[in-house]
Structure formats: C-alpha cells, structure tokens
C-alpha cells in the first residue's frame, strides 16, 4: 500500500500536568487522517527531539501551560535542527501571553493555538505547512 500520511508528534514538555488540551488536539488530528504519536507528560526537549527523529515526523506539537515556553520552545527548535530535522514544523498549544506570540513566530513556530481554537484552524495550518515543504 503506497500512501503518504502526515505524522505528528504531540508532546508536553516541562512539568505541568494538564494534558487534556494535548489529548483533544491529538484526537482532532487523528480524525483529520493524520498519524499522531502521543508521548505523554513531562518530556524534556531532548526526549522530544529524539522521538521526533526516530519517528521521522513532519510536525511536532508542544502543549505548554507552565509559562516556560520561552525556554522550552527555542531548545526544542535548536535540537531538531542539530539532528538535521530543520524541515519539521513546530506548533504550540496551551497558555501563551500575547506579547510572546510574535517572538515565537519569529523563531519559526508555525502557529500558536490557545484555548477556544477551532480544530479546523490548526488542521488546515498543519496541512498547508507540510504540503509547502514536501512540494
């Protein structure tokens, strides 16, 4: 069977234990026909980059509600790049203050989706971003 699936890693870096949002996003991406690798709570950036490498994912979704996004996100991006996976798209969910959004987008994050985001929004963004790289 020859088919191309979008593979997404959903991870929760850092120490907050609220994974409802991450699970909802994982489920929505599954329903959009993607293969979602769910890694669970309390992942270090190193664990996330390693899993992204082994699973050869197209996209990494990070859920952060601890406020540590300005430390964790750059580290994940850096490690992905160090592994030769600069083509991997990173998106963010959770609680991110408005003033950090432009900074994160500038670092290369493709989207930041807080509470209340419609699942169509990030599903479409992810599809577009992956298609743009593979084209």
């Amino acid at each position: 069977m020859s088919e191309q699936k979008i593979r997404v890693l959903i991870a929760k870096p850092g120490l907050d234990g609220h994974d409802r949002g991450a699970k909802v996003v994982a489920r929505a991406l599954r329903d959009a026909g993607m293969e979602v690798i769910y890694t669970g709570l309390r992942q270090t950036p190193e664990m996330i980059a390693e899993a992204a490498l082994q699973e050869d994912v197209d996209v990494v979704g990070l859920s952060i509600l601890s406020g540590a996004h300005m430390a964790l996100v750059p580290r994940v991006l850096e490690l992905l790049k160090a592994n030769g996976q600069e083509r991997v798209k990173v998106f963010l969910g959770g609680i991110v203050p408005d003033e950090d959004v432009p900074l994160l987008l500038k670092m290369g994050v493709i989207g930041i989706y807080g509470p209340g985001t419609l699942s169509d929004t990030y599903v479409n963004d992810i599809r577009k971003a992956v298609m743009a790289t593979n084209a």
Partner: protein
Amino acid sequence: MTEIALAQGVLAGDRLALARTLSQVENGTAEGKSALSELFPYTGKAHLVGVTGASGTGKSSLVNQLALYYRQPAKGASMSAERASGPPKKAEPRRIAIVAVDPTSPFTGGAILGDRIRMRDLAGDPGVFIRSMATRGSLGGIASATAAVVQVLDAAGYDLILIETVGAGQSEVDIARLAHTTIVVEAPGLGDDIQAIKAGILEIADVLVVNKADLPGVENTERALRGSLNLAHPLPHRFMHHGKLEMVPGQPITPDASETLWVPPILRTVALDGTGIPKLAEAIANHRTHLDATGGWEQRERGRLQTELDLLLQNTLVEGFRARLPAGAYEQVLEDMQERRISPFQAVEKLVDGAGAVQ
C-alpha cells in the same frame, strides 16, 4: 537524500537516515523498495521477538522493562523484587529496536500511536530505537509493512527487535509468522477457562506471560493457561483422585522428541516494577537456544520469507492484472454483481477471461 545514500546511511549507523528509510519503506515508495533491496543481504541476524495480547494487558510496559533489562541488566535486576539466578551476561544483546503497532481508524485513516508513553525510561539511550507504526488497514495485528520495517532495523545492526502488536483478541496471529519468538501476554480477570482452550492466539505462544501478577485472580489465570497447554503438550501428570494417587503418562517421549519439543513456559510478571523480567529474558534466550539446536530458526526464517514472497507476489499480480483490465470492466462486473446478474465466482471468471482476451 537519494536511495543509495539512505541505505548507506542505515549501514553506517546514521539514525536520521534510518528513520527516513523506515518512512519510505512504510509508505511503499520506490526509494524504500530500492533501499530494502540494498539492505536485504545484511538482514537475518536479529532475534525477532513478538509481543502480543489483549488491550490493556501491559504489552508496552513489558516491552519497556525488557528493553531496560537488556540494556542495563544490573539495574533492571535491582529494580525488580526478585533476582535472576544468573543472567547469561555474555549473550546479552547490545542494541534493541522496538516496533510498536497501533490501529488505524477505519473511517478517517488517522491513528493515535501511544506506545511510547510507557517507554519513557528508554529515552536518551542511543542503543535503543523505538518506532511507532499504524496498521493502515491491515487486520492481522501488525501492519503489512511491519516485516519490511523490521528488515531495515535488522540491517541497521539491532540485535534484538521487539515487535509489539495492536491489542490482539483471538485471531491476530500474523506476528507468529514474523517473529522467531512470540510472547503472549495475559492478565488476571480477562476471561474464564473456555477462553484458554479456544483456538488462536494462545496456540502461537512460545512464552506465556501473566502480567499484572500482583492482582487477585492470578492463580486462576495461570491454572487455566496451564490446563490448556497440557492438552497441547501432555506431560506426565500426577494427581489425587478419591484419595488415590493417579498418574497420567505424558505423550511418548522418544529420544528425539525430548529435544525437539518446546513447551511454552508460563511466567508471572509485574511490568510496573519489573518483577519477573529477568526470568522472561531467560526464557527468550532459552527459546533462541532451542531454535538454534533444533533447526527451528531456519524453519521459521524460511516460513517468514515464504509468507513475504507470497504476499508480494499476490499484490504484484493483482496490481498488474488490474492495470491491464479494459477501462470500466471492473466497475461493470461489480455492478452486475450488485444487481445479482452474476455471482462473485462468475465475476472473477469474466474478468480473468476478459483480461486474457486483451493480452
């Protein structure tokens, strides 16, 4: 990266090349196929161990503990409540690959692959490579590309490859055709003794594990499994009946039979704390020794390659056949069937004869 570079990268131990090759192989691309052809001569060395059983019996946790034990025998043993009588230190495999399969949604084609959640202890160990796979429509408990993915990991030099199936019920037995050693994981409280004598998954076990052995009911589960096994592999059996000692002789043991017969051991484990893991690793090693001694290794190898050849042959022939069919012939026959004008047998005859005429 070209396919030559991919295969060379896999052989050189480049993890990114390995991961990409696995994707190409899983997607069945031309690059994947040619990489596989290049890697095939380097395969056939790894010990393939299948882990199957119903959902929630603890397969992922067990795989995690096993890999942990193989990587750090000392730590694994100290973590468990019991100590191995003497793990074979020299024969410890060095590098472990894990292929974890979870089901694809039949409606959307999407999947949640959640086996890594239980394998976080293995993160950061460069001697372990974990890959999650979705079944992508395959119903036998593994994906149709799992065999090929395993071959790539074998060529990459992983000595022991643990293949975890989807939560398997009774008939997902494809793993037995792929693995050298099949571990069937049960847990207390999942069914009565009739479940244990049904055909299917229990028959493929080389090692039976009763996980969650700290839960009540573990004796009943073990007794049911042992009873079922005794029917398949009768052993001399003594028991008290109306106060008299009775004995049922086992099957006639010829000098050969005692060497060639493998009776699946039944082991208790608690995957959460590692209890019983050294014994399980020992049973896996024993089974390997048994396969080597009896020629079972070559036999399984041959059976596996034959299954793969047959599948590829079928797919290729069907694909080629459908490509040669005149446009609309297939749809026409399907419609005739739906209108009950022709039977499925007649439909096949019509298509095959039709294609013959075209050639």
